[in-house]
C-alpha cells in the first residue's frame, strides 16, 4: 500500500470518526449526536403517541399490534423483574429500549450515506450513529445511575440507605470496606452500561468503515453478513441496556 493510499485510508477512517462539533474545551457539543438522537427520539415518540391516540380496543392494525407487542414485551420484563410499585420504571424501560434501538439502527444504513447527503449541503463531518458517541451512552447510563440513588432513598429513606451502605455485606464492624465495596459496585453500573453499548456500537461501526475500504466489488462479501448480524446486535444491545436498567432499579428498591 503506497504512502498516499495509506494516508487517504487513515484520513477516511478519521473522517468517519470525527463528530460535527461546536464550542471549545469541555463546552463542545457533538451536534450530530444531539441532532440525530433528538430527531429519532421525536420521531419514535410521535409515532407511538399517534398510535396510542388512535388505538382501538377492537382488532388492531399492524402498526398498533407492533407497538402493543413492544409494549407488552417491556411490560412483562418489568413485571417479572421489578417487585413492588414499578411506577416510572415501565415507561423508562420502554423509552430506553426503543430509543437505543432506533439509534443503533442508524448503523444499518451504509456508512457513507448520511455523511454524503449532508456533505452535499456543506456539512463535512457527521457520525450518523449517536450510540457510537460515549457522550450519549454515558448520558443515558448516568441518568440511570441517578435514578438508582433516587429509588434507593425513596424506598429505604436516607437513614436506611446509609445503614445499608455501611453494613452490607460484611456487617457494621467492617463499615469502611462496605462503603468501598458499595462505591465500586455503584460506579461500575453506569460505566459498564455506557461502555458496553458504546463499545459494541463503535466496534460495529468501525468494522463497517473498514469494510467500506475494500474494493467495491468485494464489499458485499463481508458487508452483507455483518449487516445481517448487526440486526441481532442492535436489538440485543437495546434489550441489554433496558433489562439491566430494570434490574438495577429493582435492586435499588430491595434491601440487601
Amino acid at each position: 500500500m503506497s504512502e498516499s493510499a495509506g494516508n487517504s485510508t487513515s484520513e477516511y477512517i478519521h473522517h468517519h470518526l470525527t463528530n460535527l462539533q461546536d464550542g471549545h474545551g469541555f463546552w463542545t457539543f457533538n451536534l450530530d449526536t444531539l441532532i440525530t438522537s433528538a430527531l429519532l427520539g421525536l420521531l419514535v415518540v410521535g409515532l407511538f403517541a399517534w398510535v396510542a391516540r388512535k388505538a382501538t380496543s377492537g382488532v388492531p392494525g399492524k402498526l398498533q399490534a407492533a407497538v402493543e407487542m413492544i409494549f407488552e414485551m417491556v411490560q412483562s420484563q418489568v413485571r417479572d423483574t421489578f417487585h413492588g410499585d414499578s411506577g416510572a420504571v415501565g415507561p423508562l424501560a420502554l423509552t430506553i429500549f426503543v430509543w437505543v434501538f432506533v439509534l443503533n439502527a442508524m448503523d444499518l444504513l451504509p456508512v457513507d450515506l448520511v455523511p454524503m447527503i449532508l456533505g452535499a449541503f456543506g456539512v463535512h463531518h457527521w457520525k450518523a450513529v449517536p450510540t457510537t458517541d460515549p457522550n450519549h451512552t454515558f448520558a443515558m447510563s448516568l441518568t440511570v445511575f441517578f435514578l438508582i440513588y433516587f429509588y434507593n432513598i425513596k424506598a429505604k429513606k436516607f437513614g436506611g440507605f446509609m445503614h445499608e451502605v455501611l453494613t452490607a455485606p460484611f456487617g457494621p464492624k467492617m463499615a469502611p470496606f462496605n462503603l468501598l465495596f458499595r462505591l465500586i459496585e455503584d460506579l461500575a453500573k453506569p460505566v459498564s452500561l455506557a461502555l458496553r453499548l458504546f463499545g459494541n456500537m463503535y466496534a460495529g461501526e468501525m468494522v463497517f468503515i473498514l469494510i467500506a475500504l475494500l474494493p467495491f466489488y468485494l464489499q458485499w462479501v463481508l458487508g452483507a453478513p455483518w449487516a445481517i448480524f448487526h440486526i441481532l446486535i442492535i436489538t440485543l444491545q437495546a434489550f441489554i441496556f433496558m433489562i439491566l436498567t430494570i434490574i438495577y432499579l429493582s435492586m435499588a428498591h430491595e434491601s440487601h
Partner: protein
Amino acid sequence: MNINATIIGQAITFAILIWFTMKFVWPPLVAALEERARKIADGLAAAERGKQDLVLAERRSEEALNEAKAKAAEIIALSEKRRSEIIEEARLEAKAEADRVIAQSKSEVEQEVMRAKESLRDRVADLAVAGAEKILRREINAQAHSELLASIRTEL
C-alpha cells in the same frame, strides 16, 4: 469528502441487507402481527357470538316458559271440568241411592204395618170373643153363635 466507487459497493451491501430483511426478517414479524390481529378478531367474534347465543337462549327460555304456562292453564281448565263432572256424577249416584233407601224403608214400613194389622186383627178377634163370651156367658151359648162370630171376624 470524495465520491468514489465505495458508494457502489455500499449500495450493493445495502441492497443485500434490504433483500435479507425482506426475505427473512420482515415476514415472521408481519406473520406475528397478523396472528395477533387474527386472535383478537377471533376473540371479539367469539364474544359477539356468545352474546347472540345468550339473547337466543333467553328468547327460547321465554318461549318455553310461555308454553308451560299455557299448558298449565289448559290442565287446570281440564281438571276444573272433570271436577264438575265428578261432582255431578256423585250427586246423581247419591240421589239414586237415596231413592233406593227411601223405597226400601217405605216397603219395610208397609210390611210392618201389615204385620201389625195382622196381629191386631188376631188380638181384636180374641178381645171380641172374650168380651162377647163375658156378656153372653149367662144367656147365650157360645157354640150356638160361633157362626155369627166367625162372620164378624172376617169383617174385621
